[in-house]
């Protein structure tokens, strides 16, 4: 993901295309639903100067710009076949634009081991009616649409489903990408004696809970890292200030705030703007501030942060002003 972030300073769509459902076309923009981990790490030099990542030629050691770099496939004899972006784009023109929903299945039939990465699909284009129709009908049916599509030089199998009014996608691996137990060399399945099976059933029953304890999905290492860093900051030890390029900063919060902003704007309410994703973002900022007539909207980030600290809100250090307002509102 790091290279994608460098390449995309604005929170624009990761992929834009069309969901086709029979003869109905639903234009959509796809956004990642996974954000980078909470701990933003920066690489520094020996004198604590912030560093940047650069490309070099491994032979003449010259620094390289984007235009000096090509993509090559290594042949068996060690030579390279150079491939241009246009050549890749020409491979599957239709699939690069369409997610064709030709199959619907029960959600629980999808093998979990195929699941790869979640995305959110936002409506694009003039009319969002077809989007809502698909979202509402799919959510009612409890079914997932299965399709293949090409995104950024790779074909994906994907499950599309609807939840709480919006469409989601989870990309999946192809069956051919998974090894079989045979490939791995696992022994043939044997039936264990009844007493062993009962012993395991009892052990499972004892560990069974009605609901998943979300604490098990906490990133303890990230929390500990942040706690230590915050303690050192409060003690004034090893603190450095880095002027951050606005682009990088935008992207940081983009994946947190913008999906909701984009969805809300496109589903009505705010007036449409020519530049879609970027417009949605700048439009949401004042709206978010105005929306709440409470005191939070007028507070500085520092004041918000102090309040969040008092409440012990997790992850507050990494939050933007907007994210802090949202988190504080949620916390009541």
């Amino acid at each position, binding site marked *: 993901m790091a290279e994608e972030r460098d390449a995309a300073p604005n929170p624009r769509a990761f992929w834009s295309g069309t969901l086709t459902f029979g003869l109905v076309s639903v234009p959509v923009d796809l956004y990642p639903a996974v954000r980078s981990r909470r701990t933003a790490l920066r690489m520094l030099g020996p004198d604590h100067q912030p560093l940047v990542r650069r490309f070099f030629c491994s032979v003449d050691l010259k620094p390289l710009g984007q235009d000096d770099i090509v993509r090559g496939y290594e042949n068996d004899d060690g030579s390279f076949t150079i491939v241009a972006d246009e050549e890749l784009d020409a491979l599957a023109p239709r699939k690069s634009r369409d997610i064709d929903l030709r199959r619907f299945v029960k959600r629980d039939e999808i093998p979990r081991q195929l699941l790869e990465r979640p995305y959110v699909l936002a409506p694009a284009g003039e009319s969002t009616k077809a989007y809502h129709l698909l979202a509402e009908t799919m959510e009612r049916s409890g079914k997932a649409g299965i399709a*293949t599509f090409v995104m950024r030089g790779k074909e994906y199998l994907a499950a599309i489903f609807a939840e709480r009014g919006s469409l989601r996608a989870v990309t999946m691996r192809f069956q051919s990408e998974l090894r079989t137990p045979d490939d791995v060399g696992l022994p043939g399945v044997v039936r264990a004696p009844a007493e062993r099976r009962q012993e395991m059933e009892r052990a499972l029953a004892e560990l069974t809970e009605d609901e998943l304890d979300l604490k098990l999905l906490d990133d303890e290492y990230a929390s500990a890292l942040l706690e230590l860093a915050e303690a050192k900051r409060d003690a004034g030890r090893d603190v450095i200030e880095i002027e951050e390029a606005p682009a990088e900063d935008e992207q940081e919060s983009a994946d947190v705030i913008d999906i909701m902003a984009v969805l809300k704007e496109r589903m009505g309410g705010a007036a449409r703007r020519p530049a879609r994703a970027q417009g949605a973002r700048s439009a949401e900022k004042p709206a978010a501030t105005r929306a709440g007539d409470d005191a939070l909207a007028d507070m500085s980030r520092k004041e918000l942060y102090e309040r969040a600290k008092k409440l012990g809100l997790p992850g507050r250090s990494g939050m933007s002003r907007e994210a802090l307002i949202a988190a504080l509102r949620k916390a009541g």
Partner: protein
Amino acid sequence: MAARAMWKADLSLGEIKVPVKLYAAVEDARIHFRLLHAADHAPVKQQMVDPETEQPVASEELKKAVGVDRGVYVVLTDEEQAALAPKPSRLISVEEVVAASAVDERWFDRPYYLGPDGDDEGYFALAEALKKREAIGIARWVLRNKRYVGALQASGGYLLLDTLRYAQEIVEVTAVKPSANRSPDKREIALAEQLIGALEDRFDANEFRDEYQEQLKTMLAAKAAGKVVRFPKAVKREQPDSLVASLQASLKARRKEASHGRRA
């Protein structure tokens, strides 16, 4: 040839321990490209550079800082970071067992096989018991200085362990509603439901192929032989004006297809 185990551990459920080996379940057979210097086709390498001097900094001289605020970072020493690293162990500990539906699709990251390591009966007994309950075990372990959380499930009589993403890594999408004038009407919903019904089938992963990879391989082979390949261009679809008309036409086309005895 059998794959090599990545790790050996004890899978623990309360008092019970089942010795297992861990294997990667994903086989990466995709075409990979390398970034090359256009002038001499030499591979590109990445380095951290001081932007003031444009001088590369050696990896042993790198220091890491953690962001605590917008533009504010705290430098952590190697010792400080090492002190936070989880303690190594050889335990995959099942913390709780929940219904398979309780584990969100968005959390799944990467699958691994667990294989038996000395107690085949215990291993297969556990796989069968998990399947019978239609349950997933939520497990935690530490491997190579990293803490993991995963979902233990039964598949084809074997045990699979999928790594899960942390909850904080998932962007939460709250409920959204269309404005009233954009809400679909009853007739449109009824037609769309019929169309979904007509396209419903069991999930069969073998039905889908990575055609893009196949075309990519063909293209690369042709290029290496000095040939040019052309692939069919996209066909533009015709679309009726109204949603209802589109849905009706789609249903009609689908029924026609079905009556010819062919699955789409």
